[in-house]
């Protein structure tokens, strides 16, 4: 059944991806009416299918489908569901603005194809499929970053794609190294590498995989493109990167590193732990200096990838299960917060409000519901209970206590540092008298998505910890 369902998902998303721009550009002669709604229908259908699959597979072992090319279990379906929700939020929020762009049919088409690429990437169990899915997601993300065709978007897209080429080359190197050890293109073959195998090759493959996937999600020092893209490109496009691309790439990174961790041995916690420290400390400290909310969120995204790496550090130790659960929960929190915040920025942009902290003055009075939603999202990012951000950090930091208590301590200190900058927008929105800005309208799709993201953060805080034990690879 799993294979049929994934075939159906592929059929729906490829169909809509190809059909919607064709209809809009040719038959409807550029009226750009069909593509947003067709994409939305496709995404909602996908959520329904994945929801059904998640219920049926919650306590079942992962199954291999398409001749072992994909391996799908609850963990993969959970991440796919998060990515689809992220894409749906972006599709709904973009109804307000993106529909006006000349390239909007392409935007929606690429969105549905990117979601499909995300499914393949998350569930890839063969390196050939992995390369294909990686290419699909990467190329679409480069194009989507530049799709607005203004100077900043094009600059961001060029930087992102040029650096992405190096990441792609590193993945190919890593796969070549693994192939030289296993003579197989199956991801599962990594687990069969004998303990006595050439350790330098295993380490080299690990370094290449971490660098390549780390580039895409913003692991320091491979993050160069991220602040320029997340901080300067249209926030709606960044919401797509946070909600879909980061989740998909994070998912495959975890699946590849999971069998590699025991082969690397005792050095694993130190290596990944160091990357985690660099990433979260860099993200948090530089975010402290930002006076621009979008730039602050860009660096905050880097810091959150550092937190996810804390869970990766726990692999092959007694905290592995807790680490995986924490990673799953944190991707949910990261998607909701990232999409919520960047859609909020897109909303501000549409309302003519700037992104400087000063521009947020008095927003709490003019846009009370949206401001309260942002307050909830920021509290979740801080890790305040009972929001989902608290649970994910709790799982992640607890997972590493046995193997690297120093990392747990540094992560908690970093989480404390982050309060310093997350409190700033709250201060300006609620405790400063400000200039007149337009009032909120909850009928606006982007405002509604911000509120929905905040509500889901509360719901997820109560619901997701109970399904976390099923998040196993």
């Amino acid at each position: 059944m799993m294979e049929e369902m994934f075939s159906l998902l592929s059929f729906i998303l490829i169909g809509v991806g190809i059909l919607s721009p064709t209809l809009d550009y040719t038959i409807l002669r550029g009226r750009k009416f069909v593509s947003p709604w067709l994409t939305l229908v496709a995404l909602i259908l996908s959520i329904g299918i994945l929801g059904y699959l998640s219920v049926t597979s919650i306590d079942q072992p992962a199954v291999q489908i398409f001749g072992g090319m994909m391996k799908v279990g609850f963990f993969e379906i959970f991440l796919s569901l998060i990515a689809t929700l992220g894409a749906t939020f972006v599709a709904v929020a973009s109804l307000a603005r993106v529909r006006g762009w000349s390239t909007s049919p392409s935007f929606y088409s690429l969105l549905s194809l990117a979601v499909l690429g995300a499914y393949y990437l998350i569930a890839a169990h063969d390196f050939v499929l992995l390369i294909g899915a990686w290419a699909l997601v990467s190329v679409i993300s480069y194009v989507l970053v530049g799709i607005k065709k203004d100077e900043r978007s094009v600059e961001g897209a060029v930087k992102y794609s040029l650096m992405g080429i190096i990441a792609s080359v590193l993945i190919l190197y890593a796969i070549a190294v693994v192939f030289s050890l296993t003579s197989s293109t199956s991801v599962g073959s990594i687990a069969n590498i004998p303990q006595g195998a050439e350790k330098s090759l295993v380490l080299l493959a690990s370094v290449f995989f971490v660098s390549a996937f780390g580039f895409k999600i913003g692991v320091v020092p491979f993050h160069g493109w991220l602040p320029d893209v997340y901080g300067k490109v249209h926030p709606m496009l960044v919401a797509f990167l946070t909600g879909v691309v980061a989740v998909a790439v994070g998912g495959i990174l975890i699946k590849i590193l999971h069998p590699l961790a025991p082969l690397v041995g005792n050095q694993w916690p130190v290596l990944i732990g160091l990357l985690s420290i660099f990433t979260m400390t860099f993200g948090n400290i530089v975010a402290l200096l930002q006076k621009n909310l979008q730039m602050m969120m860009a660096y905050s995204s880097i810091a959150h990838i550092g937190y996810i790496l804390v869970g990766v550090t726990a692999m092959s130790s007694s905290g592995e299960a807790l680490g995986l659960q924490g990673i799953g929960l944190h991707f949910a929190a990261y998607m909701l917060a990232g999409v919520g915040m960047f859609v909020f920025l897109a909303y501000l942009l549409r309302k003519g409000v700037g992104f400087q902290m000063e521009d947020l003055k008095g927003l709490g009075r003019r846009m009370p519901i949206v401001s309260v939603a942002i307050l909830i999202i920021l509290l979740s990012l801080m890790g305040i209970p009972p929001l989902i951000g608290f649970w994910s950090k709790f799982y992640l930091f607890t997972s590493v206590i046995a193997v690297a208590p120093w990392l747990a301590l540094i992560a908690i200190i970093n989480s404390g540092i982050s309060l310093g900058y997350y409190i700033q927008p709250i201060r300006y929105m609620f405790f400063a008298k400000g200039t007149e800005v337009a009032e909120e309208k909850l009928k606006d799709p982007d405002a509604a998505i911000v509120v929905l993201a905040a509500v889901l953060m509360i719901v997820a805080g109560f619901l997701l910890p109970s399904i976390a034990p099923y998040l196993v690879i």
Partner: protein
Amino acid sequence: MTGLNFLTPLLGSLSAAAEGVSPSVALIYWFYIEGLGFAIALMYFYHIFVRGGRPFYDMLSKWVDRAIIDDFYHKYLPGAVQLACTKLFHKFETPVVDEGYNRKLVDGVLRLGRVLRRIQTGKINHYLITFTLGLLLFIALVFGMMV
């Protein structure tokens, strides 16, 4: 009256001694005699032990009052606490908490942030150099640890 059953033989003997007196009157007399006995014993105790030990108690209370309450509790202890607080304020609160934690640490973090932000030049060649150097450093670290 069942609780007083153990008194019955005693009351009986008393009644026998004072013919025609009811047991309840005998009981009242009994308490009177017993109370008298207790009062004598108490006086004896006071006279011998309490009054006799008065100089000792006077001396003890004088020393306890002066040494412990007046000198130690009211003088030396507050003095020591005040001295410790003053020292703590001058040696720890001001230089470590105010100057160090509140100023220097924050300044340091912000300075580090400004240094780190310089990585973000906006130029792709700089990012590629950072990427490559990071990768090389990572590889060196990995293989360094292996050796």
